[in-house]
């Protein structure tokens, strides 16, 4: 265990995992309690289009993902606010469009994409120093946003209509929340990849929200549980020589199952 920490890639992986858990626990608590799991899944998958474009045009795929995540979160948010009856369909379509664009652009790019797999399923051990800097910045932004608008987010998530009657900009806050979901997705991309993002975004908060009924506590303990699952999963994958992202997700899912049984 100690000797694994001597490797820089392992240390970076651990730091990345912890940084991802912070955003995950905070934003995941909104995703679970406001029940926007599907829309969050849509946003994270749409990010893959941006990764493809990043490859094609030769810039950091994470920035491409950020661009696509923000753009798709805006489109899906507008659909959910203004065309409620079509919301599901629009999310599903954007989800598929993002993935398809990603595949097309990657196939068009001349360069071989060796770490494509890592964007799909994550590879926590390839996290670089610059990834970590980006993650710290995103974490900081998410944390500050939630502190500044905690009471507005709470009011809007609980009762949109009443908040509208009180004169709050419900549309703005909803889109802003989805924007934070997009940022969190980008944070998680390197750790677990687009396909598994939704698992880490929801599982820690889903487990914790069964035991606490204050959003603040759910956030705090989701972060702690996320960190634990991340570290435990990483060590498990290291010793069993398994893909890290999938191991973390399976371990988390297993804990979720246990928590459901405990709660029965």
């Amino acid at each position: 265990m100690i000797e694994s920490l001597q490797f820089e890639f392992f240390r970076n992986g651990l730091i990345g995992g912890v940084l991802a858990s912070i955003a995950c626990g905070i934003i995941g608590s909104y995703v679970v309690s406001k029940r926007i799991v599907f829309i969050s899944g849509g946003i994270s998958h749409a990010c893959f289009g941006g990764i493809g474009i990043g490859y094609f045009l030769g810039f950091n795929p994470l920035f491409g993902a950020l661009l696509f995540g923000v753009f798709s979160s805006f489109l899906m948010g507008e659909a959910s606010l203004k065309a409620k009856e079509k919301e599901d369909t629009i999310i599903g379509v954007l989800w598929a469009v993002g993935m398809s664009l990603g595949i097309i652009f990657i196939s068009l790019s001349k360069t071989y994409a060796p770490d494509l797999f890592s964007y799909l399923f994550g590879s926590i051990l390839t996290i670089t120093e610059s990834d970590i800097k980006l993650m710290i910045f995103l974490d900081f932004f998410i944390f500050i946003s939630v502190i500044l608008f905690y009471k507005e987010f709470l009011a809007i998530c609980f009762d949109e209509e009443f908040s509208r009657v009180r004169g709050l900009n419900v549309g703005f806050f909803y889109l802003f929340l989805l924007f934070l979901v997009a940022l969190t997705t980008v944070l998680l991309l390197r750790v677990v990849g687009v396909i598994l993002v939704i698992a880490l975004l929801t599982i820690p908060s889903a487990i914790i929200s069964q035991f606490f009924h204050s959003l603040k506590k759910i956030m705090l303990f989701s972060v702690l549980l996320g960190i634990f699952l991340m570290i435990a999963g990483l060590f498990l994958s290291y010793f069993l020589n398994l893909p890290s992202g999938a191991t973390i997700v399976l371990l988390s899912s297993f804990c979720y199952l246990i928590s459901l049984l405990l709660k029965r």
Partner: protein
Amino acid sequence: MNENVIEIKNLYVKLRDMVVLEDINLSVKRNDFLGIIGPNGGGKTTLLKTMLGIIKPYKGDIKIMGETPEKGREYIGYVPQYVFFDLKFPITVWEVVLTGRLNRTKYFKNYSKEDKEISEAALKQVEMEKYKNKKIGELSGGERQRVFVARALVSHPQILLLDEPMANVDSPREKEFYELLKKLKEQEKMTIILVSHDIGIISAYVDKIACINRKLYFHDSKEIKMDELMAVYGCPVDMIAHGIPHRVLKEHD
């Protein structure tokens, strides 16, 4: 003190190209207790939401305290329908009541001492202060309604709008809830508008009744004409209108 707090003239509302409210005329005076009854899908909630500026009228005029609904709604305390809530949502009674103090001027600020004092007082007023730290989903239907009334009260409204407040309240609690509304009308001089699909529920407490089913029938009194009730419900309805204070309207099978 006889001014109209709500004035609706020739109001038409369309939802997805369907006329749901047709030529509505209604004036509500200060300190009135108005019950609006009508079948499900008759446009009751739509009328409330139009008053709140959530739904825009297709034609006609609507004034709340002499202002447009978007402006006038700051005088309104709104108690929405029970079905809109997610009871699993992690929020306590106290947090729910505090959200009633929110508005755009509170961005970037914490709740003030005044916000907290007003919220405490509102919880006392509806006799729910003991439940302050409970999760909203743990309360019974009647208790929850009281909390939502408290949330509506903290903005010091002049008008209270309640959408189907008895939908999930068991009958012994119903009377207590009406007593609470009566107290608010008498002590706080509030104007109260209550919407319900259940005729029987409009008890001795309201002073005026309107019937709605796309069109609105209203005579500025507690009187409903038989043919109008039939027009609204599409079936014969029997009225037992004697013996105040327990004046009850009953529905035939």
